[in-house]
């Protein structure tokens, strides 16, 4: 009986591992057949398919790296900050040539960066900036989330809405995207005398919680005329809640909706006038990192703090062509 139990447990452990690592298994298997000269890039990604944005992001890495002839070892933290850190340590032990980290949380990466440095592995931050002092990382290819937020704030200022009452739907507490975008609107509100009537973070950047929160606000009679949702999904959730209560929003509505990320489906909503503004958060980091690694290989000095170029799309100026050009 005991043997049976233990064998079943082992079986399950294996199954669990297969389930967890399903997405990375393919790339790890192919590693054995690689020629020894190929550059190996370890990527610590956040979640396998948390959103369309993340899917496009992962795809961008895989495509750019395989086009450049790199070996990719991609691992997924699946929402677990501690897991990401141990995955990064593991990649360092496996002696990858470059380590690219997209942190779920911005804090707590010092030890990883230090061990990468000791092992002589360049540490590259992508997507989200981590809390590291400049000497601990080699370069970064990040989105400047505060700048994204500021774009939205400047746009909102230009709209000259009387008596702004803003609902802020934040992302995962402590992620740099949430910190930057929340800071921008909080600073903007105090500088322009806007009133933030609600400011809480929704766990998981998800529609459902945003929808519940906005429905609760409406039910308790809280007035607002701007929704500042820190990603497309939460904006969609907020719109669902307003739909259910008969509140008009968007281009001709009472409530101005601001979203971030600019997925294709969200741009369609901008085009349809449901969202007023969508600030882009560019997921196509792959080619930039390839360029960066090539310059590092060639021994050139690289720009340490490179931010990704990002645009914003507003419902008055967006065109069908912009929506069609978007691939994710």
């Amino acid at each position, binding site marked *: 009986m005991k043997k049976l*139990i233990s064998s*079943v447990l082992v079986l*399950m452990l294996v*199954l*669990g591992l297969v*389930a*967890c690592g*399903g*997405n990375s298994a393919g790339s790890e298997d192919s590693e054995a057949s690689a020629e020894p000269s190929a550059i190996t890039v370890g990527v610590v990604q956040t*979640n*396998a*398919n*948390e*959103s*369309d944005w993340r*899917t496009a992001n992962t795809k961008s890495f895989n495509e750019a790296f395989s086009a450049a002839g790199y070996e990719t070892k991609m691992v997924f933290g*699946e*929402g677990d900050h501690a897991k990401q850190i141990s995955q990064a340590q593991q990649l360092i032990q496996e002696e990858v040539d470059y380590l690219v980290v997209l942190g779920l949380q911005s804090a707590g990466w010092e030890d990883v960066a230090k061990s990468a440095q000791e092992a002589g592995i360049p540490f590259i931050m992508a997507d989200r900036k981590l809390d590291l002092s400049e000497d601990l990382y080699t370069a970064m290819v990040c989105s400047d989330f505060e700048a994204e937020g500021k774009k939205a704030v400047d746009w909102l200022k230009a709209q000259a809405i009387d008596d702004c009452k803003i609902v802020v739907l*934040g992302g995962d*507490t402590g992620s740099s995207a949430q910190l930057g975008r929340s800071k921008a609107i909080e600073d903007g509100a105090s500088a322009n005398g806007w009133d933030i*009537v*609600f*400011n*809480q*973070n929704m*766990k*998981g*950047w*998800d*529609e*459902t*919680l945003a*929808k*519940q*929160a906005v*429905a*609760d*606000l*409406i*039910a*308790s*009679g*809280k007035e607002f005329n701007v929704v500042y949702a820190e990603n497309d*999904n939460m904006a*969609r*959730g907020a719109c*669902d809640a*307003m*739909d*259910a*209560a*008969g*509140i*008009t929003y968007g281009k001709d509505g009472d409530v101005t909706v601001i979203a971030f990320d600019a997925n294709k*489906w969200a741009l369609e909503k901008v085009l349809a006038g449901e969202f007023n503004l969508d600030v882009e958060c560019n997921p196509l980091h792959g080619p930039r990192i390839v360029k960066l690694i090539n310059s590092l290989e060639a021994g050139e000095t690289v720009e340490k703090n490179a931010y990704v170029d990002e645009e914003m799309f507003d419902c008055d100026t967006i065109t069908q062509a912009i929506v069609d050009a978007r691939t994710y």
Partner: protein
Amino acid sequence: MSRNNNNLNSNRSALVLKELIRHRLFIPIAFLAFLLLINVFINPGFLGVSLGRDSSGNPVLIGNLINILNNAAELVILAIGMTLVTASSRGQDISVGATVAIAGGVIMRVLCGNETQPTELHAPIIVALLLGCLAGMACGAFNGILVSKFNIQPMVATLILFTAGRSIGSMAMGGLKPKAAAEFGYYGNFIPGFPIPTPILITIVVVAVTFLALKITNLSLYTRAVGINDKSSSLNGLNPALIKFLTFVILGLCVGIAGFVQASRVQTVNPYTIVPGIEMDVILAVALGGNSLSGGKFNMTGSIIGAYTIQTLTSMLTTLNVNTNAVPVFKAVIIIMLVVIQSPIVKSFLGNKFTVLKSTVGDGKERG
């Protein structure tokens, strides 16, 4: 108020009071009433319900109370299953959030196929519901076998799906994040023309079926018997393993229904973020309902009230716009208060305070 009565009057009112306080549902109901009162105090219109119209002109009920009843649906449904599992197996299933992700993933895949923005549903909704429930029950059966046949502690056994479930849900969806056609949304929102949110109706049906099942079958008796003592129940001709297995499968069914409601709310599922942390809320609901987490006797009504209490608290933290960093602390402080007041020591202290009659019994702790 209680002290006044006590001083004023004879044994009689003290007795009534004591009976009231000692009633199993007194504390859960008192908490819920207390939270609602605080809300009314802060926002006098809190309990108000008004008839509004949604953007397509259909009548809808709007109000905090409606929102609480609506948003608590998943919690209530899961708490029902969790109560049975707790009672029979003397442990908790911590995989319910992850298995909701699996059920939700299956439902989305059935409805959307491989498209991300399908304009029509790929299968009838009832098929999706049934397959979602089947997926949930399969997960429940998996947990149930580990617990009942292999005698693994429930928390350890369910740790497996807790860890892997969300990834499995994501695989079930084929790595896509589709949004189903709008008519799927009726079950998590409103049926056009009918002003009461559908999740409330679904909850009523599930609760009614549960109480009916507890009344007309021996499930309640057998579950308690197995939870109180495996051996003696098996000596009395019960099959403890089967009963435990059955409760896990029932919880699996609840998971399927909860996954269906949750997926329908926004017509999409993100397996990694769907119902974040609901496991703990569900277990808490069971505890707040005055149930012993070490099994045996259970109090279904208490668990349901506990679930509504938690949703009231969540909703309250939103409407009060508590600083986002302080939300968990706030929640923890209130919950610790609720749990401490329910602890046997405080209970017996209160019991002694109000009466000199026999000491408290019947808090579900008879099992050694």
